[in-house]
């Protein structure tokens, strides 16, 4: 690809006021129309990364590095420009659609809100645009007059996606968009997201702890552990033949039905993720690593391998 990528994250670091190093030196790129999955367990920094993309982190968090969105650095952007970029440039679909919607406002008004703020549509045209958006996400336009409690969980998640699309963003960040949804509803939402990305040529970053879901939806995968990307590459390759032991554990966590190896043999990973304010020395994964060597306790590992497929492990 010769054109500049839609999103280019260079050496991003985020440290919270409490001293927790949530993101430590992450490099990621995403082209328009591409789908990138970020996997990892809670506390690995994946949600912090998503918030950092739009500078939505709480006060006191220190950021360094560059986040180039369409060539513009989000981190040095002026406040007014940043407001325009939020929603119009990039928008986030949060997890837990239950709490992200205002319970006492009609959903049509909530979808219209960013359009009115950013004046991307004339007030007269907003109602029409809302109807179009709702139909886009598979809801009847008449639903604009409903309140959130009148919708089911899957429908609320659709509304959240409609809201994210309201200002025709170039980048959509979906943070655990299907967690807590049933398999059938999850499949519906994932199809919808895939279809929207293909139709509108937007970039998608999807965040989840479920590697199987990410591998099914995304083109590329990045697996994060303790604030770093420990493996990245084409989705199918990372899922089916992971290089990093942590990525292996994540991919084995959800069994393939019919696979006799996982029958009566659930596989997980012992131990807990490290405390981001007190990381172990050397490779941060070594205390939980089944194949750790003595030197892993002292020697940090950088991402290595070919450009497309890299992992940060001594065995690579």
């Amino acid at each position, binding site marked *: 690809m010769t054109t500049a990528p839609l999103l280019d994250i260079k050496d991003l670091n985020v440290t919270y006021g409490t001293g927790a190093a949530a993101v430590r030196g992450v490099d990621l790129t995403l082209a328009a129309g591409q789908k990138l999955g970020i996997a990892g*367990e809670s506390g690995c920094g994946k949600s912090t990364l998503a918030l950092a993309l739009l500078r939505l982190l709480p006060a006191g968090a220190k950021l360094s590095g560059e986040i180039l969105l369409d060539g513009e650095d989000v981190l040095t952007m002026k406040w007014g420009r940043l407001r325009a970029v939020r929603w119009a440039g990039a928008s986030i679909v949060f997890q837990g659609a239950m709490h992200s919607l205002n319970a006492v406002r009609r959903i049509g008004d909530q979808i219209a809100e960013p359009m009115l703020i950013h004046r991307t549509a004339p007030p007269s045209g907003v109602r029409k645009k809302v109807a179009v958006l709702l139909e886009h996400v598979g809801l009847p336009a008449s639903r604009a007059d409903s309140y959130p409690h009148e919708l089911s969980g899957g*429908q609320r998640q659709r509304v959240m996606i409609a809201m994210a699309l309201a200002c025709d963003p170039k980048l959509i960040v979906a943070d655990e968009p299907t967690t807590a949804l049933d398999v059938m509803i999850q499949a519906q939402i994932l199809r919808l997201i895939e279809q929207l990305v293909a139709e509108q040529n937007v970039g998608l970053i999807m965040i989840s702890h479920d590697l199987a879901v990410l591998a*099914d939806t995304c083109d590329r995968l990045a697996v994060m552990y303790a604030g770093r990307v420990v493996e990245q590459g084409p989705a199918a390759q990372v899922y089916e033949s992971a290089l990093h032991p942590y990525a292996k554990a994540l991919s084995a966590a959800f069994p393939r039905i019919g696979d006799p190896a996982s029958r009566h043999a659930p*596989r997980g*990973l012992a131990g807990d993720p490290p405390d981001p304010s007190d990381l172990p020395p050397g490779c941060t994964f070594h205390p939980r690593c089944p194949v750790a060597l003595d030197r892993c306790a002292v020697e940090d590992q950088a991402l290595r391998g070919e450009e497309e497929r890299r992992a940060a492990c001594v065995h690579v």
Partner: protein
Amino acid sequence: MTESPLLHAADLHVTFSGRRGSGSARAVDGVNLTLGKGEIVALVGESGCGKTTLARALLGLEKPTAGHVTFDGAPLTYDTRSLKTYRNRVQLVLQDPRGSLNPRHTVYEAVAEGLRVHRYAGDERAKVAEALSRAGLRPPERFFQRYPHELSGGQRQRVVIAGALVLDPELIVADEPVASLDASVRGEILALLLSLRRDLGLSALVVTHDLGLAWNIADRVAVMYLGRVVETGTVEEVLTHPRHPYTQALLSVLPEASGEPVVLTGEPPDPTRIPGGCRFHARCQVLASGAAERAGVAGSCRTEDLPVLSAERTTQAACHWARAATTAP
């Protein structure tokens, strides 16, 4: 496992009377289920299919409107005293370990709660320590005075399991035991349930929407749709050769499934308005594709309700089309 079953539900119904305006909800609408000693059964279905209500009814937390539950050969009665004895032997593990621990109780108090309720006369401290180490929290003393908010999600779920184990139950009913846990912790908790079965002979009924979980630990599976079990049998048979279109659809949308996914449209229907005929016919892909028509059962799909599946351990599916396919040569 041919001796009398540990837990048996016969033609169980739970109906909730509706609020003004809406009709009553038939959350559990005729279920037969049996669970042998040392057996792990997965109860699978979408939210709203009645699986949680069924689990609550089996625990005696919900009084069935019809039918009865038999535990260890004796029918369950609903007076306070016998329920209390019953709860000494059957334990519940809930989905959200953060919510199922009182934030103001320490780990010790949370685990000892069952002992105190049942006025355990022995050494409470030793019992709590034993339960915690069985649940994989070792050394147990280190966790005694911790509060739930100081633990990770996996540790919290282990505390909940220890709280259930402390009474030496014969059966654990687990409602989505890993749904709110991280992928890496999930396998650990499931392995714990399996090892408890191996070491203590514990039976378990696992309520879940996650078919992978059933594949991981269960011996048998029952798929529920709108208050009824629509397909039941051994995990291998049901999950690798599903006969009911609903089970087929559920399996086809899993991320790693091969073949074209069958994404059912719409939300799971409402238990206050269960459709006539086969309760799945309005969303059934087999009926919609005309396959049922060709098999000559489309009429019965739309008009004829199916009999309730029996509690026997054989593989069964409540589907006109599947029946036609098996009876035809």
